[in-house]
């Protein structure tokens, strides 16, 4: 902007130097050039200092530009004006329009362009093709310039926002790595040694193992996905792992819509709660997550005593649908299916399919 003001100031000075002997009042022409030079310096410092309160300066800027254009009437002879001689400040006035566009956006730029154009037309006394050209260029500079600046500012804001988010993710990953390399290793070691020693130390080992599992789930749980409508179910399912629950998932994210994901996760939690309730304290459970292009399958298998033959059917017939049925209800509500397979002494397997 400063560069533009300086260049156009030099242009105006050259024109004045070349034409001043034809002016009606050459001295006034030189004086006005001095004012333009002074204002160029003042405005350059002013816009840099007054960040946030530039409006006063904008009004003065446009006012001086309009004044300079009109002052041409006092400097030039009317014959030369009618012959199409340029205004005294020539393109220098566009600087004020650009300043308005930058600070106040397309509307501010547009209004400044209208003010300066009006002065141009008044100075000429008529809308000549030459003046019309200038008006169009000024309006374009004010309107489009303001719009482009706004776009730039918005882009800058979103870049800043994204880099803040990235910094947060980076910090989280750094913490996760740190915890992974130190605390988790020690907890795992305590759990391992403690179990071998047994007795009360074995109990401590289980505590350490439980802490390891939940801390691991905490640091490995993915940040919420950028698209708030879908969720990677692996983090939550992995957090269900424990000394007796083994979770196996694919390496890639398993994205489901929030609604389907929530239904699936509560169904899996309920199935695991069932294992704990019915299969005995030392029964183990395996949770497997699989994906197909059109659906996600989660199976929950335990090595407990299994459901005696006919008991599920009997409960269903008696209208007592029980916990198993609430899993089925949840999943069918989101368009999925559930199959329950159980044989005495072979454990129970619940297989849940949901659409992607």
């Amino acid at each position, binding site marked *: 902007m400063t560069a533009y003001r300086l260049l156009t100031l030099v242009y105006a000075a050259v024109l004045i130097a070349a034409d001043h002997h034809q002016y009606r009042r050459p001295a006034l022409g030189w004086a006005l050039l001095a004012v333009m030079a002074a204002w160029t310096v003042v405005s350059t410092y002013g816009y840099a200092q007054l960040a946030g309160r530039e409006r006063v300066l904008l009004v003065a800027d446009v006012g001086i530009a309009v004044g300079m254009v009109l002052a041409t009437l006092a400097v030039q002879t009317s014959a030369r004006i009618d012959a199409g001689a340029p205004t005294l400040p020539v393109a220098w006035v566009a600087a004020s329009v650009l300043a308005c566009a930058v600070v106040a956006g397309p509307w501010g730029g547009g209004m400044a362009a209208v003010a300066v154009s009006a002065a141009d037309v008044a100075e000429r006394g008529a809308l000549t093709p030459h003046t019309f050209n200038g008006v169009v260029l000024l309006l374009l500079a004010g309107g489009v310039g303001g719009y482009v600046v706004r776009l730039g500012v918005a882009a800058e804001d979103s870049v800043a926002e994204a880099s803040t988010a990235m910094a947060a993710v980076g910090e989280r990953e750094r913490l996760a790595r740190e915890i992974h*390399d130190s605390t988790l*290793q*020690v907890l795992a070691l305590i759990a391992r040694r403690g179990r071998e020693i047994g007795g009360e130390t074995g109990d401590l080992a289980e505590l350490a193992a439980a802490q390891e599992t939940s801390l691991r789930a905490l640091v490995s749980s993915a940040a919420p996905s950028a698209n708030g409508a879908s969720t990677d179910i692996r983090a939550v399912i992995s957090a269900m792992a424990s000394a007796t629950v083994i979770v*196996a998932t694919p*390496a*890639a994210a398993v994205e489901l819509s929030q609604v389907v994901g929530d239904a699936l996760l509560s169904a899996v939690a309920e199935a695991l709660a069932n294992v704990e309730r019915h299969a005995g304290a030392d029964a183990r459970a395996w949770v497997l997550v699989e994906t197909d292009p059109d659906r996600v399958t989660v199976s929950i298998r335990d*090595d407990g005593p299994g459901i005696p033959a006919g008991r599920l059917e009997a409960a269903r017939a008696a209208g007592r649908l029980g916990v198993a049925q609430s899993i089925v209800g949840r999943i069918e509500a989101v368009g999925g299916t559930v199959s329950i397979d159980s044989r005495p002494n072979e454990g129970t397997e619940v297989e849940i399919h949901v659409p992607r």
Partner: protein
Amino acid sequence: MCPAEPVVRVMVVDDHPIWREAVARDLEAAGLEVCGVASDAAQAVRVAKATRPEVVVLDLQLPDGSGVDVARSLAAFDEPPKVLVLSASGEQPDVLGAVGAGATGYLIKSASAAELVDAVRATARGEAVFTPGLAALLLGEYQRLSTGDAGGNPALTPRETEILRLVAKGFTYQQIADKLVLSLRTVQNHVQNTLTKLQLHNKAQLVRYAMEQGLDD
């Protein structure tokens, strides 16, 4: 020492001194020979070159790079050692990378000392050591390859898929053999195949990539 079990030369790679020592002690107590230890990737390759272990027990999180790179370097040896990944859970992409690079087993760090010793012996015999976690990773990887647009990707046979799913659901090889009325050996072969196919595919891809980049000599 049990005379029926041959002495297996093992190297342990883990950046945690207490872990490294605990693992080495457990292996030695079971009659295995720990011929070397290393705490980072560069040292691991150096020590392996010098001591020629049969089995490398490898942690994937190393201070100077991923254990995946170590697995890749070891696989390039003239007589490559067998690699058993012993790693924390929650490192699935790395585990898949190490297995693709040639590791033949994966055990999580919460495994007991007895499980570890069994796994090392099985690895030395050339058997794949699968956890449910590894089976699920492979199922996911084959699924991913099958939906990719490039043709010629390896695929599992229905039988292999069936067996891999059972492994992922926590069934032992013996339980699977009983369930499907197969011999234990057949089940092991099927599981082994799922791994070999992926490793061959990865190797071919590396070669193709090298040729495309003009890196082959």
